[in-house]
């Protein structure tokens, strides 16, 4: 502490000297170039967002959001895609949250931090987060559909009900993809709960689980919610993992069973952008779909960021 304030003092005394140095051409160049780099990023984001909003906002009407596509997807709206996306992420979250939260509770409250099992779990979580999304797609096809689905069909004597692309398989594939997100955010939330709380509960005679159930989980709820929202926002935008596991090019009906295929916003963007028969007619629809998808993910991200910053403030106040 004293040494650093001493250093600040010294820096203040030496400021005239620094001023002379700052005129140094290389120095000016570096700070200028670095500001320029930051400026470029801001500019590019502004251009992308500006372009999408400018060409998209006129398309996004209630009618567009509530109507199905018509005339070979050159007219109409995107309701089935919105419905399918919602169904997909709801199923995903239902499958994901218990496992993600459970794993985080185990890692943070039960596990010895240096045991081999704990280290292996952490290693897996880190590397699961780095697996390319297209590999998840391959895995979903190879494991859920070709292996699990076919086995289920055989066991139940059914003819190709589970062993084909379906909503439930796409949701489970996405759940695996997002497992690290939920584990990491939940752990962060658990470490924001002060140790006093745990000790107080245990001292009152509560068991470990009672402490978690009645003290830790309520406190960690915003963090768990953050993880859930982040995973939903990421899940809504991922296309590669669901291309072969359940997303459909076009469906005249809405999915009602977990074994149905479905339309999805991100996949719909891909389809409209690359498979269109009439590019000019599709363009407004394409921009409208992109803007809808962006608004959905940004609304979710904003909610998650707000919750997380509140959580971080809580964490900072405690330490």
């Amino acid at each position, binding site marked *: 502490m004293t040494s650093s304030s001493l250093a600040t003092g*010294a820096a203040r005394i*030496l400021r005239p000297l*620094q001023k002379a140095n*700052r005129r140094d051409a290389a*120095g000016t160049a*570096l*700070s200028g170039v*670095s*500001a*320029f780099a*930051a400026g*470029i*990023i*801001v500019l*590019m984001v502004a251009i992308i967002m500006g*372009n*999408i909003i400018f060409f998209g906002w006129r398309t996004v009407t209630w009618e567009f959001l509530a109507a199905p596509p018509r005339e070979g997807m050159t007219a109409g709206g995107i309701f089935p895609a919105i419905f399918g996306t919602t169904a997909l992420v709801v199923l995903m979250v239902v499958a994901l949250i218990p496992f993600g939260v459970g*794993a985080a*509770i*185990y*890692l943070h409250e*039960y*596990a010895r931090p240096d045991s081999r099992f*704990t280290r292996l*779990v952490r*290693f*897996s979580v*880190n*590397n*699961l987060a*780095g697996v*390319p*999304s*297209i*590999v998840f*797609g*391959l895995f979903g096809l*190879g494991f859920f559909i070709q292996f699990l689905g076919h086995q289920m069909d055989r066991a139940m004597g059914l003819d190709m009900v589970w062993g084909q692309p379906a909503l439930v398989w796409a949701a489970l594939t996405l759940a695996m993809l997002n497992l*690290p997100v939920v*584990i990491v955010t939940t752990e962060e939330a658990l*470490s924001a709960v002060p140790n006093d709380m745990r*000790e107080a509960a245990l001292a009152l005679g509560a068991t*470990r*689980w009672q402490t978690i159930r009645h003290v830790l989980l309520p406190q960690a709820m915003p963090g768990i919610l953050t993880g859930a929202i982040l995973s939903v*926002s990421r899940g809504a*935008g991922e*296309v*590669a993992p669901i*291309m*072969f596991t359940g997303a459909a090019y076009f469906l005249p009906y809405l999915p009602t069973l977990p074994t149905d295929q479905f339309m999805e916003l*991100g*996949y719909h*963007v*891909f389809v409209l*952008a690359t498979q269109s028969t009439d590019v000019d007619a599709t363009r407004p629809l*394409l921009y409208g779909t992109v803007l809808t*998808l962006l608004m959905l*993910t940004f609304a979710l*991200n904003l909610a998650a*960021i707000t919750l997380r910053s509140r959580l971080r403030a809580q964490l900072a106040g405690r330490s």
Partner: protein
Amino acid sequence: MTFAPADTTVGRMRPMARSGHRSRQRVREAVIDVALRACAFAAIAGLVLIMLFVFRGALPVMFDAETMREASLTKFVETWMWQPVGDVPKYGLMPLIVGTLKVVIVAMLFAVPISVLAAIYASEFAPARVREALKPVIEILAGIPSVVLGFFALIVMASWVQSVTGSSSRLNALNAGLALGLGMIPVIFTVCEDALRAVPRSYREASLALGASRWQTAWNVTLPAASAGVAAGILLGLARAVGETMIVLMASGNAAIVSASAFDSVRTLSASIAAELAEVVVGSPHYSVLFFLGSMLFVTTFIINVAAGMFVERLRKRLRGT
């Protein structure tokens, strides 16, 4: 800043349990303990299952005689052509590997300098208000789904890039690489900025006290101190670029050409899987080849990620140890 589980000692001092209620409770505690452990195990199981089933799909390429007549490891390197559909399918991986390398190199050349410099700016030079404004911009970029970046590159950016470079093919490695770079920027920036900000203030103060200017401090003191974190950021960005699918699928043109020019259309490993898997007969040689491509992507990104993890660990040790 991890809390040691404080309950181990306290937990043992539980009131003496005699009644049936207590023993039932103890059973419940044990069950929950096992259930939570199983949840944690799910993460391991997930990674192992992915390896198992992606590798399993690729196995016929190495062990099945029927498949190997069309597609085998030697054929992968012998043929310099990728023509999976036709009377005599050709599965040469060279065009895909060259294509992936080209796109990734363009993306790295674009994204690494910009992200690292912007991170230096944000942590060393920017006034607090500018830094706070920069953060949401990066969050927005990180929140844009890759299919939207692919859409933008395909519909909008490709025309701009073509009018500037005058290249004959509208969709090419340059266009895809730039779009891919956009996707990498948030990853590299965030990790680098975190690493730079984790460098203790005393380092900077000591340097300033010796008369160094702010940029000299940033370049000669802060950046070297955070170098392991910067390396980790770049590696994580690289892993993302190698595996990223939707952007390259939409923006690269998908023609499997072996050339050194960034203005030629390219087909990457990931885009080939995405473009072809839907139409492939399950169990056919083509199916196995696509799983082999997936295995290659998995192994490559796995190695890069493990290396990045080691750099993160080194940074943590260095900043803690001194």
